[in-house]
């Protein structure tokens, strides 16, 4: 039941750590690239700017460490901007490259509803993959979102939500997971998602 939280300065690491502990995890919180490269289970939090978050990963070589861990078969959960970083690119400031672990682009919301999205929104998980991190979560359960950008119809999408049109709320490709919402702010449903991730073997 161990997990390693990547201690990004562009993240709300303390909140994520508290929620993970409440979900039964024993945590290492680190900025050490070697430690990250060897970790069996990683959590990549992130809030605010995709560009700043990616810049930090590059500067610290933690981007390579994450790729190495995933190549070795580690589990990885990206949260909010951490989820966005899994993709190829974001158009937050022109096109910025992400970790490229998942195919797809992150784009800004446009439409009648105000941007950023701030609040609860219903998440529809795809039925066949229901047993993963959404195990025990009822269809259309609301989770808490704060985002101006999102992936749309990503190839690895396992859950979607609708805000100015459908967007990708969660992804999974083998052992790499991402959630656009904030599980640490989504009360019981959020803690359940974290517990499911912690329980992944």
């Amino acid at each position, binding site marked *: 039941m161990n997990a390693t939280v990547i201690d990004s300065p562009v993240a709300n690491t*303390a*909140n994520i750590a*508290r*929620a993970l502990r*409440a979900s039964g995890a024993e945590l290492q919180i680190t900025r050490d690239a070697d430690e990250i490269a060897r970790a069996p289970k990683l959590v990549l939090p992130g*809030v*605010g700017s995709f560009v700043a978050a990616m810049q930090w990963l590059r500067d610290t070589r933690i981007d390579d460490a994450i790729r190495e861990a995933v190549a070795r078969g580690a589990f990885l959960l990206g949260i909010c901007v951490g989820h966005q970083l899994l993709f190829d690119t974001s158009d937050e400031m022109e096109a910025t490259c992400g970790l490229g672990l998942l195919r797809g682009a992150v784009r800004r919301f446009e*439409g*009648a*509803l*105000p941007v*950023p999205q*701030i*609040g*609860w*929104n*219903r998440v529809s998980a795809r039925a066949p993959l229901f047993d993963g991190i959404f195990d025990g979560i009822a269809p*259309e359960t*609301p989770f*808490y979102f*704060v985002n*101006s950008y999102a992936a749309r119809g990503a190839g690895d999408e396992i859950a979607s939500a*609708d*805000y*100015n049109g459908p967007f990708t709320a969660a992804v999974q490709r083998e052992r790499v997971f991402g959630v656009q919402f904030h599980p*640490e*702010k*989504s*009360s*019981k449903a*959020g*803690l359940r998602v974290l517990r499911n991730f912690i329980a992944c073997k």
Partner: protein
Amino acid sequence: MQVIPSLDLLGGRVVRLTHGDFATARTYGEPEAVLDALDVPRGARLHVVDLEASRSGRPIETDLVRRLALRDLVVQVGGGIRSVDDARRWIDCGAERIVVGTVASESPRLLSTLVETFGAKRIVPAVDVRDGVIRTNGWEHESAATIANVFAHIESLGIAEALVTDIARDGALRGPSFALYRQLRSMTRVKLIASGGVSTISDVVSLARLGNVSGCVIGKALLERRLDLRETIARLATPNAIPERVIPCLDVRDGRVVKGVSFTNIRDAGDPVECAMRYEEEGADELVMLDISATDRAQATTLETVRSVAESIFIPLTVGGGVRTVEDFRGLLRAGADRVAVNTAALRNPELIATCAREFGVQAVVLSCDAKRDGDHWLATVRGGKELTAVDAATWCQRAETLGAGEILLTSVDRDGTNQGFDLELLRAVTGILKIGVIASGGAGRVEDFRDAIESGGARAVLAASLFHDRVLSVADVKHYLMAEGIPVRS
């Protein structure tokens, strides 16, 4: 639900009357020019009233209606239709549907004949109501027929849709009569076209949520550009299931929860951490913590309280009270707040909003506005409602949105602690001109108040303090009620 622009015609031009009074007529120009200006999409339904005909009892603007029907619009025409011949005149002009008012309630036999002649789909009965009584003949006469009887007849004829206007609301921009449409929901299966008072996008969304409203006629609000037709249609097309939020508020002083009436007569009410945990358990979507000691005291206690509350819950936490500088803002975020509400300091230095939005993101910035009624508008107040400013509250909220506030926490100083209900007029004045969300605060006393703040006030979240703290109502009570009323909430 269909949005139906409405044009009232008089002397070949588009006009608007207030409360049906011809003396108040205001002219907006030729119908074609108005349609172009409103950007009415092709194939849209258009509601046209021949005002002179409604007075004189014979079709007048037939040429105009013929021109409009040629513009790829589904035109429904009303005004003084009293016979099969009148109806045929309009249908020959290209009208798709005939709206009959006086006939619908005064001449049940003629209504039957019209349905037999033209088919139930082409007849739209119009029922105009004031204070629960049907009015006819250009609203000048009280009808002897009851609403229940009229709708029973309409339903028996197989008519699917009826236009219902609350006369007191028409042209007054005070919001539609949700109570009337809700009352009709339990009375008839006939779907309603709501008319009168629709003036915000939120009005349209709330009407759609009622379930028995299939269309809404909008006149004045479109003509006066309070509402953009395309934007309204786009908003209706977005999902209507995004949960509205119920937010308990902890007013904290020196590390204890307190509650005052109109910001005075403060009494002790408990431990913030215990309260916060209970509220999350009850289903609170978010917590607001307002530090009412921060204005005069040291910040250390406050930060400690924020830290311990933030550590005890897994829902978003907004903290406000005494935030003066960017550093105060940062300190509260570091202590575990997700969002910070600014009030007095932002009024004195509006740039604080822009700076914090740049530094911490729009989502972190909440403008707290304590508004006090002053005649027909509201003024922003500072120092917890104790000191009036010269700043118009609605204008100030709009400016805060431009500067980068992510949401507005709007408190009615007049209603706070009174349990008399939220100030719906204040809410409408602010939500009607903003795109960002408004949290309604001040005055909650009954479950219906929360519904009204969202439905009629246009709030995206509802907040209460003492009501929840004193266990008059639980968060769960409010959410169950809202859900039963068709307002989406997180269960």
